[in-house]
């Protein structure tokens, strides 16, 4: 599905990703962990084409997509739930979902997204900037699903949410995984991250410093305290 080979990404002179190699297979959930500022968001930006890598290669469904514009990647089946939600504030909830629909066809329709997030249906005619943080997060996920992706990139979807809503996001993640979606997930909530992950990579200063299965990480106190600040 997705392959990164020796990806180096810069902001101007600042060399943030320093040779990332990883893969996400069909129906696989891969989770990226790491402290703040280690390059997790930059990794997502490199994949979706916001900040294309300067060196290395990103391939998606067999195509070299390293320098593709984002809208082309989305048309090919990639979608992003960005950190901080980034819903379109001046659009209504329904418009936010509508603009992401692109004749690709598939399982996700407006009706199904509203079924997954009934709250969005109740607020369909509200402007997105009037939503609560939790509702905005649902909208950001729903918007990504409207593009009918095969690979979903999710950057800290539970950031700043109350525990109840964190569980709600966990439920949705589980459901998407059961549907067979491939997911590349950045998540700070360790228990949630480990509950859905098939594979975990730990990012530190732009490099992958440890890769393992979720079970192994649960018991590896040394890695947890060294790279995640978990006691």
């Amino acid at each position: 599905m997705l392959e990164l080979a020796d990806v180096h990404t810069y902001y101007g002179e600042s060399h943030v990703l320093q040779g990332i190699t990883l893969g996400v297979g069909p129906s696989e959930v891969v989770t990226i962990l790491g402290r703040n500022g280690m390059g997790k968001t930059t990794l997502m930006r490199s994949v979706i084409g916001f900040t294309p890598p300067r060196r290395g290669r990103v391939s998606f469904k067999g195509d070299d997509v390293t320098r593709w514009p984002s809208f082309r990647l989305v048309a090919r089946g990639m979608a992003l739930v960005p950190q901080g939600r980034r819903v379109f504030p001046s659009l209504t909830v329904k418009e936010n979902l509508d603009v992401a629909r692109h004749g690709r066809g598939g399982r996700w329709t407006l009706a199904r997204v509203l079924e997954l997030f009934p709250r969005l249906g109740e607020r369909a005619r509200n402007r997105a900037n009037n939503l609560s943080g939790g509702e905005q997060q649902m909208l950001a996920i729903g918007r990504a699903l409207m593009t009918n992706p095969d690979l979903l990139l999710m950057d800290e979807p539970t950031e700043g949410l109350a525990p109840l809503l964190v569980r709600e996001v966990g439920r949705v993640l589980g459901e998407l995984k059961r549907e067979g979606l491939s997911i590349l997930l950045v998540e700070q909530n360790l228990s949630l991250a480990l509950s859905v992950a098939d594979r975990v990579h730990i990012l530190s200063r732009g490099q992958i410093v440890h890769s393992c299965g979720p079970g192994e990480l649960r018991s590896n106190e040394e890695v947890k305290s060294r790279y995640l600040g978990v006691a």
Partner: protein
Amino acid sequence: MSGEFWITQAFNGLSYGALLFLLASGLSLIFGVMRIVNMAHGSYFMLGGYVGLSVVWRTGSFAAALLAGALALALVGVGMERFFLRRLPGQTLGQALMTIGFALIFQDLALLIWGGDPYSIPVPATLQGVLTAGALRFPVYRIFIVVVAVVIGAALWLILDRTRVGAMLRAAVDDREMAQGVGIHVPRISFAVFALGAALAALGGVIGAGFLGVYPGADFEVLPYAFVVVIVGGLGSLPGAMVGSLLVGLLDNFGKALFPELSYFTLFAPMALILALKPTGLFGRA
């Protein structure tokens, strides 16, 4: 001062505001979608007027002049966007300098082709009369300008507010990067907005040539007005361009009528005041 004075000046301000709206709505949308400060926007207005003039000389048709002016400048605008501005993505200053370069080139080209004399576009007889109501006199041509602006403003509003394409455009104004990230083909929208903005400015130029005339320097004369409209109304906002145009049209007219020696002051002082109170303009968002 009599009631007639106020009504007449308000009407003149309204019709000038209507003309400004044709000019400024495109400028605002172009900035909103592309973050380009288009210093050549006044050139579209002037060149539209000149192209219209040539077409009227050839064909005698005012309608053909409107159409030809709008189409010709849509092509010019699209060419600028596609082959030049798009090469400097995200470089606000570079793009602004480039549009200044274009404006200067257009100025010289116009001088070369149409010479330095001022001209006026002959308007059709049906638009020439004056409607009177008691002591009040309303030139039909100015009513025509208001009608054109209202029709175009309503059409733009319907498209922007009620259609999916309009929502896509607003999404690109809100967050250009994320719009691409949900699959919106933003370059195509930029292309369309540049074509539309240039065409509307040119339409304003042809119409404006019917009562202001067309002459060298018209480009840089209208440009500050368009910028005041956009800044007061809020960058990238269509309702902002509507309200801003009306406000600037009225202020300019009353300013010139009441305090002719202070006309720039009466225009720019309220602008400074609005910006001090609401830095994003009346309808703009941070």
